[in-house]
């Protein structure tokens, strides 16, 4: 565990009300992010990773209900009033969205975006200081001062994303949540942005939660990784260790199915992630898991710590809680090709 986490999430639950029933998008998630640390949060679409990111910042739609704790600076963000929370968002907690194109105001110059942000959160700054801080942050992102007075449409996609990052960083937040920050960008620009994000801790000391579906990005940019499946974190540990020796069968399957330059065989995960309105009662991965045992159908797995890793899987224990005969192999359920994500 981290000595002094910047943010500490405990038993966070986020449920959405829908006409069909309650969607358990995030279900009892706990995690810590340390100072200057990059934590990767990976999972497939619909696993709840974006909801978790927004839940930490209290940016949930009205149809969502949340429960648990998000400890930041000795306070629980979840029980704060909206007004109080607004003081934290920006100067303390920043967010970078997926679509850089749609998050900048097309009618405002870049300069005005920065002025508005800084005036809002640091009203004591003079005009000169605002300009200096903005140009300095933009410069670190490779945006030249000559373009300070231009409009968003005059920039390329990669530059707009760098402006977005600069806009979040100009307030020097302690924690930055980046939700798929490179998904709509080309591979070279993606790599440029990732190297900027990786340098954050050196330049700004910012802790970063990097939400992505791309395992390659996690391996390149993150210290630790949390793997999310059906609203739960099923495995968490040092990125290097998790990728070298994945413990949870889902992590193993996800890594095997990733197509990289080293791929020589195609692998996929049979079946589809469960419906989060009525997920499997015990282990949520059980129907797709090749290693399933009879206990996996009966009891919800209990988190087990192995060295610096935690895993939510009966294969790794705790063995004294597995009922007699519970270790009997079941294997994967019969899944037709058509039943897939």
């Amino acid at each position, binding site marked *: 565990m981290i000595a002094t986490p910047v943010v500490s999430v405990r038993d966070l639950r986020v449920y959405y009300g829908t006409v069909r029933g309650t969607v358990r998008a995030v279900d009892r998630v706990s995690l810590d992010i340390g100072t200057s640390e990059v934590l990767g949060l990976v999972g497939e679409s619909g696993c709840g990773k974006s909801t978790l990111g927004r839940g930490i910042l209290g940016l949930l739609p009205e149809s969502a209900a949340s429960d648990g704790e998000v400890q930041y600076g000795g306070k629980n963000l979840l029980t704060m009033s909206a007004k109080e929370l607004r003081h934290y968002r920006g100067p303390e907690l920043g967010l970078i969205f997926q679509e850089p194109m749609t998050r900048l105001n097309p009618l405002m110059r870049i300069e005005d975006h920065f002025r508005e942000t800084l005036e809002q959160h640091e009203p004591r700054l003079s005009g000169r200081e605002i*300009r200096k801080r903005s140009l300095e942050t933009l410069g670190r992102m490779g945006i030249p001062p000559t373009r300070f007075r231009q409009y968003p449409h005059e920039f390329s996609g990669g530059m707009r994303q760098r402006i977005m990052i600069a806009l979040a960083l100009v307030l020097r937040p302690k924690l930055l949540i980046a939700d798929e920050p490179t998904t709509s960008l080309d591979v070279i620009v993606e790599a440029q942005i990732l190297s900027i994000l990786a340098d954050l801790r050196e330049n700004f000391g910012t802790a970063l939660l990097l939400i992505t579906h791309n395992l390659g990005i996690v*391996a390149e940019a993150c210290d630790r990784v949390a793997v999310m499946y059906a609203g739960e974190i099923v495995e968490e540990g040092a*990125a290097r260790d998790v990728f070298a020796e994945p413990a949870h069968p889902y992590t193993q399957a996800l890594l095997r*199915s990733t197509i990289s330059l080293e*791929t020589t065989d195609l692998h*996929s995960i049979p079946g589809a992630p469960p419906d989060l309105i009525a997920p499997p009662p015990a282990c949520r991965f059980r129907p797709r898991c090749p290693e399933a045992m009879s206990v996996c159908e009966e009891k919800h797995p209990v988190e087990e710590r192995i060295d610096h890793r935690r895993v939510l899987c009966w294969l790794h224990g705790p063995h004294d809680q597995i009922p007699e005969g519970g270790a009997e192999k079941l294997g994967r359920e019969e899944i037709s090709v*058509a039943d897939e*994500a």
Partner: protein
Amino acid sequence: MRTRPDVGVDDDVLVSVRGLRTHYSIRGSFGQRLVGREAGNVKAVDDVSFDLRKGEVLGLVGESGSGKTTLGRTILGLVRATDGSVRFDGEEITTMSERELRTLRRQMQIVFQDPHASLNPAMTIADSVGHPLRIHKVVSGRELERRVAETLETVGLAPAEQFLGKYPSDLSGGQKQRAVIARAIILNPVLLVADEPVSMLDMSVRAKILALMLDLRRELDLTYLYITHDLATAKFFCDRIAILYLGRIVEIGPSASIYEDPKHPYTQALLRAIPEPDPRRSVPRDLPRGEVPDAASPPLGCSFHPRCPRAFEVCGWETRDLRDLLESRWSHQEEEEYARERALIENLDSLDIPRVDVRLRAASRRGADVLELLEAAREEDPDEPFWRGVRSTRAVDDQAEISWHEPVEPRALDVGPVRVECHLYDEDALAEAERRRVETAGSEKAGV
């Protein structure tokens, strides 16, 4: 059978593309249109030639704006070519009428990137998949139903009864893409153009769709044109790869050679940029700066030269490269320092017009002040390839005159099994660069 007017057409070639250009004109402002002036045009596809052999999978790989999608569509006749030729099974399609094309389209089909947008939400899967049969009046009634059910099972949507009456919104992303593929193959096409067929899907589903496409290739004898930005899936899927940059094929060859020994600096950069999921393998990467430039006014000479770490004298250095150089210098400076340097040059926008020589007016009325700024920039980073492109600099009264070496247009060269468009492999271009180097050194000496 079809007659083949051309002598020497390779029997194995399904699609033969020669000197193909697709240009889009940009509509300017109302005023410009009023006086009949176009704002220019975008060379989306610019002099592309290649052959697609029967049964082959050819990958068209490039970043957004490289022209890969336009190229795919031009080959299908969905976009009209501006110039050049596309022969499908020996028949020229660039000059075909819409009616002739429609008959031919039974043999060539396309799968788009977004399965959610490719299916009509108001049509059942049976209607969508059977639609081509109805449009081309191939079969109807019972026989149509039978063909639809059979095709659904071919693509893995089995049992078909379970899917026939469903709507796209009832299906997962992977299932939708299977339905889209079913619709594309129901007419038994020869050629399938797949435009980013898996990039919208989750990792765990991508492998399934690619495996399906490989199975179909074997079972139905398909030829694929696989359009993608993803070099990792292309490596697995393609027999040959063409790398596109700003409308041109900069490198084309067998997959094995492209991945093991990429020749073009752009291909090398693309391969280095792919994030590798195995952290033990990741290495620090030197990435090319910047992004794909605006296709409406591409760089002079080789389009990749402003980002290329190995560019030299004749690659096309020009005014806009100087602006980029100054701006990147300024973005790292303290504000006061920047303000001082920026004030030296009166009008920076004169660098936006692509030219190989320019006169910059110094705000101080001393051209030498601007030259001093350039000298400082050169000293800071003397290895920057830009400086190799500079032919001469001199102060003329209140102006600084800068000129660059005339660019040599890159040409396609056969290097081993690949064809590459890069001066690094062109003896003539290298010799020309050497000659210019000697010349520049000589005039510098004479200047002293």
